[in-house]
């Protein structure tokens, strides 16, 4: 049992990445009730944007210098794609039956995957992502890998900044108003199109941060990395209560912890050996999701789903 602190830390690092991506799902859903299934691919393009920046920098540039530039490059890429998607794929469908933008999102996600696969040199499965050259750090009984250092620092900062933005800034308050009642907000002089675009852009920035976390953690990015990560993040958003920003982060952490603890300990329960194991971790994560939805359909922190349905 002495491995417990390490397994908890593993779950938190994993969950932070899920949470960062889940923000994008939850913000867009909160404002336009659209599940942007292309968000996983927006995350993926953020990773490739960051990698491209690294590759064009002169060889041997220190990662501490390159990382901020990669962050800017990755965020710019995914924001550009998210805004493009919003303007050309979703806005024309606003007001159409709900299924239409959903199908557009799925189509867009396939198109983005194939586009990266075809446009990016070398069609091999994964591209090597640069690594933070030091570490690991030992903190009590827990090892923090160099790749996780960025996650540990970036995830809480992102959350605090977002919370302050939504609560204090003019745009943030306009977002809340739009989320509550978009028609009335428009009558009050809020440019709802701009607000919706902002929600997409913020989600994309978070996705890019998550993509860099992912790249540093696993040392690679691939054109198909968005699918599974996107699915897990969507699950995290639903788990936390879709539409609720804090819920997205909490849902991500709970999901990550559930996966880690299930992998580590279920196999030790007598008779459960076959159902423990690494390969079963997503299964237990989804069992948890189903349980939460059965007992608390609005999600852990959710509140908005009921009056929207």
């Amino acid at each position, binding site marked *: 049992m*002495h*491995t417990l602190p*390490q*397994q908890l830390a*593993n*779950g938190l*690092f*994993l969950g932070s990445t899920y949470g960062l991506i889940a923000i994008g799902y939850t913000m867009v859903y909160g404002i336009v009730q659209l599940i942007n299934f292309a968000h996983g691919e927006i995350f993926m393009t953020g990773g490739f944007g960051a990698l491209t920046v690294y590759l064009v920098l002169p060889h041997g540039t220190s990662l501490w210098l390159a990382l901020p530039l990669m962050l800017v490059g990755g965020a710019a890429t995914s924001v550009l794609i998210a805004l493009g998607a919003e303007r*050309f*794929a979703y806005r*024309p*469908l606003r*007001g*159409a039956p709900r299924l*239409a933008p959903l199908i*557009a999102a799925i*189509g*867009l996600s*396939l*198109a983005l995957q*194939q*586009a990266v*696969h*075809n446009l990016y040199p*070398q*069609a*091999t*499965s*994964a591209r*090597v992502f640069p*690594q933070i050259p030091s570490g*690991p750090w030992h903190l009590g009984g827990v*090892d923090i*890998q*160099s*790749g996780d250092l960025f996650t540990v620092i970036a995830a809480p900062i992102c959350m605090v900044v977002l919370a302050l933005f939504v609560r204090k800034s003019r745009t943030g308050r306009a977002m809340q108003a739009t989320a509550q009642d978009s028609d009335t907000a428009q009558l009050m002089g809020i440019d709802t199109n701009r607000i919706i675009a902002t929600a997409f852009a913020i989600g994309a920035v978070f996705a890019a941060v998550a993509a860099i976390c*992912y790249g540093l*953690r*696993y*040392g*690679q990015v691939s054109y*198909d*990395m968005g699918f*599974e990560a996107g699915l897990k993040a969507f699950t995290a958003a639903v788990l936390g209560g879709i539409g609720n920003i804090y819920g997205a982060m909490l849902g991500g952490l709970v999901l990550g912890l559930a*996966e*880690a603890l299930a*992998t*580590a300990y279920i*196999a030790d329960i007598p008779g459960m050996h076959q159902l*423990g*194991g*690494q*390969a079963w*971790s*997503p299964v237990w994560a989804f069992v948890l999701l189903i349980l939460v939805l059965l007992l608390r359909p609005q999600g852990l922190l959710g509140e908005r789903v009921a009056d929207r349905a």
Partner: protein
Amino acid sequence: MRHRSLLVLSIALTGALTVTACGSRGASKSGGDSAAGTTVTIGVDAPLSGENSATGLGIQYGVQIAVDDANKNKTVPGVTFKVKALDDQAQPATGQQNATSLVADSSVLGVVGPLNSGVAQSMQQVFETANLVEISPSNTNPALTQGPNWAAGTKVRGYKTYFRTATTDALQGAYAAQYASGTAKKKNAFVVDDKQTYGAGLAGIFKDSFTKDGGAIAGTDHVSTGDKDFSTLVTKIKASGADMLYYGGQYDEASLLSKQLKAAGDAIPLMGGDGIFSATYISVGGAGTEGDLATSVGSPVDGLATAQDFIAKYKAAKYPGDYGTYGGYSYDAATAIIKAVGSVAAANGGKIPSDARAKVVDGVQKSDFDGIAGHVSFDAFGDTTNKQLTVYQVTGGKWVSVKTGAFNG
């Protein structure tokens, strides 16, 4: 207004998807008779995108070079060979569709591939029905040639059109166990596999042989293909006190697993089969893979005098992909088909007969020549008679062969 924009969008989207889907298929022009003579197509099925694609592309271009050589040397007078490569994305269902489409193309007289044993299972029946020969350069699951009860000693050949130039996991897994306990003096192995036909089979054989050789199993676990996060598994392996990790599966997961294991401070080597023997394993896994071990079929291609011309051509053409693992075997597989086509044509007055496919199957069965990666001939099950195996170790960021031999256990 709204309806029109919806229409425009869906058309644009469909168009975009079609275009990209076509693009990912790679070179897939269908064959046909040209004015200069007969054109014979050699099909290739391998993962050309996604997981395992580095190795898959090595197969495609290994065949391409064999075909180029045959055309240049006019190996079969009056016949021009061409390659039709289809992407199976390592998916059995896609492999079966590809098999059907290769069978439907009457100019295809032989197929090289697939990479994955699981994909081969879904293709064998299709080729058998059409009497089309299939030679895999890389399938190592014993059941493919010897039937499901091979381990119990009941060997039955299910498909007379299926051959392979790679030796089987029964030998590979046992050879790995022999090296691990004998040469590397490992006592306590943690065994992980990816639940696929190849990976689970190989891990099972290793586990049995390693225990038989006196080793202990510290623990077992399974991963899913596509998994990226092994942090919890790594913590488990570290706590188990194992002195080596055996992994049955492909390099995509193995390199990440090894990297995360070493980053967590557990310096035990990962050992795997030919599925991890790839340059990509090292480039993605980084310094963490130093000291890791892999068995692979045959002798190292780089060290074979007969393969130097092939390697030079592969490098000169700047083909993507990894020729090291199966490129040489793909070349030999394609050559076996080309030679068989040649003997069929020669027996028919220089023309390809109408029942060429069935005759090519017989021709391949009778193959007996020195390929670039070793002698090529097949036993009664369609297995290669070349039982050479090699253990490689990552040394200085490269795979270096540490032991080569024939296994007859």
